């Protein structure tokens, strides 16, 4: 196994009170092309900036070649960065931009005096050394002869190349690239992707690349680190991540996916969409699972041959393939195929066992810490909900003064008692009337699961997440209120002592 060039150990980062990186640990092998992939705000850029030294971790360690560099300033780290918006110095020409790092550098030279004794001196690079290195760097990025040009006369792509040259001329151990192609148009991006890959091959140094573009990550990387909400979701090769996503988030984010809720019904047998399929993943019988099927793993056939039968809802030509939506019962399934079908066609669908990926559902119910308040309501996740407190003590009831009377006739004041609150995924409903529910929040994630949507609503103050299933289509960022019926709130006493 290759040497670990950089390792993050339990790195956590807060900005003021906001947790942006939550206990992240991973390592990067020497010479690797590794990509941090995730939606905006997932913490990928912050992770990169901590490696570069622009942000310092709140806790945890960053080891560079085995040495802890977490508190080192950027100018003392053997890494260089290609910035998102290039950050080229506008007052310097191309040559001076690239030479900037070289002029800061001091090297140890060994000399011999008349008596034959050797001595060393820390010296700046000579003019010739600098101009040779700059010239070489410009060759690598294909910008020979651009030395005298001013930055403002360059196109976006050329500026991009100068930014790369400026970083690699210092021969860093690690090159950090923060969404470097984000500002380029599609065609240019594709070209630069190939070129970056080629530069990586020629230099043989470690590249750490940040992007939100899953295709870019799949094309370029040796290893992908998928991040969301400041947490690493999965680390693996592009193929590994695509073929075996660790959870529904990864499956949904990388490539197209059909995601279903299923149940294991036997040895390597899973039931979803009302049918039983053979699969390769081993799970316990009766376990509830999330099932991911890639659109290209679904094969179309005659209706009588298919396990699933349905009707074609829409056909979209995508260049290399057709994207066909099939209505199977109440499920909508997306299929990719080089063959087309007509809308309204009755077709069958089959999936090979290796096309079915099972994963543990990330959420099976919502669990919160709550406190019972005065009127036998429970407070959690920024809100107050009506609940049935008698469930805490079997056989108890509430008297006229709102005191709880236990089965043995004991009078208990529950105000301030801490409880564990559990709410099932399908028991939570949301409404766009902010007054309708016990608490309010924004929708932060939507995943389509064949016949329903899986939403996550995050409250504003405590940032508690409600996971729920709904048939209705909502939009990300919608402001909604969360409604939970009184009888669906399951309470358990947190402190066993209180129970006596």
């Amino acid at each position, binding site marked *: 196994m290759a040497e670990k060039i950089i390792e993050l150990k339990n790195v956590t980062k807060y900005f003021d009170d906001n947790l942006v990186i939550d206990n992240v640990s991973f390592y990067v092998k020497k010479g690797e092309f590794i990509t941090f992939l995730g939606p905006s705000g997932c913490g990928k850029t912050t992770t990169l900036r901590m490696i*570069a030294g*622009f942000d310092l971790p709140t806790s945890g360690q960053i080891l560079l070649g085995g040495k802890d560099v977490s508190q080192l300033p950027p*100018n003392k780290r053997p890494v260089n960065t290609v910035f998102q*918006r290039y950050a080229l*110095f506008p007052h310097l020409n191309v040559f001076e931009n690239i030479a*900037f*790092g070289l002029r*800061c*550098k001091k090297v140890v030279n060994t000399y011999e005096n008349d008596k034959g004794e050797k001595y060393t001196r820390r010296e700046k690079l000579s003019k010739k050394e600098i101009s040779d290195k700059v010239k070489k760097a410009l060759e690598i990025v294909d910008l020979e002869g651009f030395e005298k040009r001013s930055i403002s006369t360059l196109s976006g792509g050329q500026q991009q190349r100068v930014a790369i040259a400026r970083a690699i001329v210092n021969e860093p151990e690690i090159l950090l690239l923060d969404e470097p192609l984000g500002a380029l148009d599609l065609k240019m991006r594709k070209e630069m992707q190939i070129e970056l890959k080629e530069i990586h091959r020629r230099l043989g140094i470690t590249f750490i690349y940040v992007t939100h573009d899953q295709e870019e990550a799949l094309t370029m990387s040796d290893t992908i680190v998928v991040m969301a909400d400041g947490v690493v979701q999965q680390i693996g090769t592009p193929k590994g991540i695509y073929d075996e996503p660790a959870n529904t988030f990864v499956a949904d984010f990388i490539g197209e996916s059909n995601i279903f809720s299923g149940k294991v019904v036997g040895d390597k047998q899973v039931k979803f969409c009302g049918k039983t399929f053979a699969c390769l993943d081993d799970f316990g019988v009766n376990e509830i699972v999330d099932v991911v099927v890639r659109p290209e793993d679904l094969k179309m056939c005659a209706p009588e041959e298919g396990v699933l039968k349905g009707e074609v809802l829409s056909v979209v030509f995508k260049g290399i393939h057709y994207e066909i939506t099939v209505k199977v019962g109440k499920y909508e399934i997306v299929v990719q195929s080089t063959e087309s079908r007509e809308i309204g066609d009755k077709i069958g669908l089959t999936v090979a066992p290796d096309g079915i990926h099972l994963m543990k559902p990330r959420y099976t119910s919502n669990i919160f810490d709550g406190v019972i308040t005065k009127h036998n309501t429970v407070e959690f996740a920024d809100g107050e909900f009506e609940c049935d407190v008698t469930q805490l003590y079997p056989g108890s009831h509430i008297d006229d003064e709102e005191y709880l009377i236990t089965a043995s006739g004991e009078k208990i004041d529950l105000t301030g008692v801490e409880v564990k609150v559990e709410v099932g995924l399908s028991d939570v409903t949301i409404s766009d009337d902010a007054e309708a529910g016990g608490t309010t929040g924004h929708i932060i994630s939507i995943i389509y699961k064949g016949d329903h949507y899986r939403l996550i609503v995050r409250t504003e103050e405590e940032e508690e997440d409600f996971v729920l299933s709904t048939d209705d289509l909502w939009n990300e960022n919608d402001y909604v209120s969360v409604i939970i019926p009184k009888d669906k709130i399951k309470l358990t006493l947190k402190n066993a002592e209180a129970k006596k």
Partner: protein
Amino acid sequence: MKLPRFSRKTLGIPYAVFLVFFVIIPMLVIVFYAFTTGVKDPETGAESFSFSFSNFLRFFSDPTKLSTIVYSLVIALVTTVCCLLIAYPVAYILARSRLKKKFVILMLFVLPMWINFVLRVNALREIFNLLSLAPALESLTSANYFKTIFGMVYDFLPFMILPLYTTIMKIDQSLYEASADLGGSALVTFTRVTLPLSMPGIMSGVTMVFLPSMTNYVVSDMLGNAKVTIIGKFIYEYFGNDWHMGSMVALVLLVVVFLSSWLSGGFKADENVRGTNL
């Protein structure tokens, strides 16, 4: 109804008239007075002019006048340098701090601009009077110069802070990061990134302080016990009785100002930030 259409040309007419009457003609009048001498007819009271270089020769052969020019230049130069040395750190710290209320601090520095200039200088004089504990020291001419320069720095400081602040504010944060990333220490980042990129602000601050401090004789009069004479004072005095000489001094000043602007690159219109955000 048809709206009257104004072409750019017609809209420009009022400005052209303004320029002719308030800039070009007065300039020509100054040049005219500077290179003529007038003789008053004792009988009719009418004045007759004759072309002459005598004002020019008188000015340049008079050591007091020449030394006044030099003094004015030195005072203006010292004032500008002091303003720059005080203003740059203030502007730099304010522009780069993450303070939410930094606007308030900036306002406090700029606030004196909104108080009447004469009042401020008077107040400063009173403070100096209160502080004059050693009368022997007071009588020295250098004390007068010190007080003059102090007053000017006090007066012109906001004009230096504002352009510097806006220019430094506009420097992209990622450029500092890029410099550090490439191995630049704090000093290297300052000398090779911050300073060159704040040059436009420095230039406009310098022009806004240097030029007025050469001519603002109110400060030198009130604080310098009338012992410090700068070129502006000359012009004021000559226009009392000798317009010809006054015009000549004004013309010389114009040339000096022109030359210093030209040398400081003030005519490079591009990317020169003279305005402020306030």
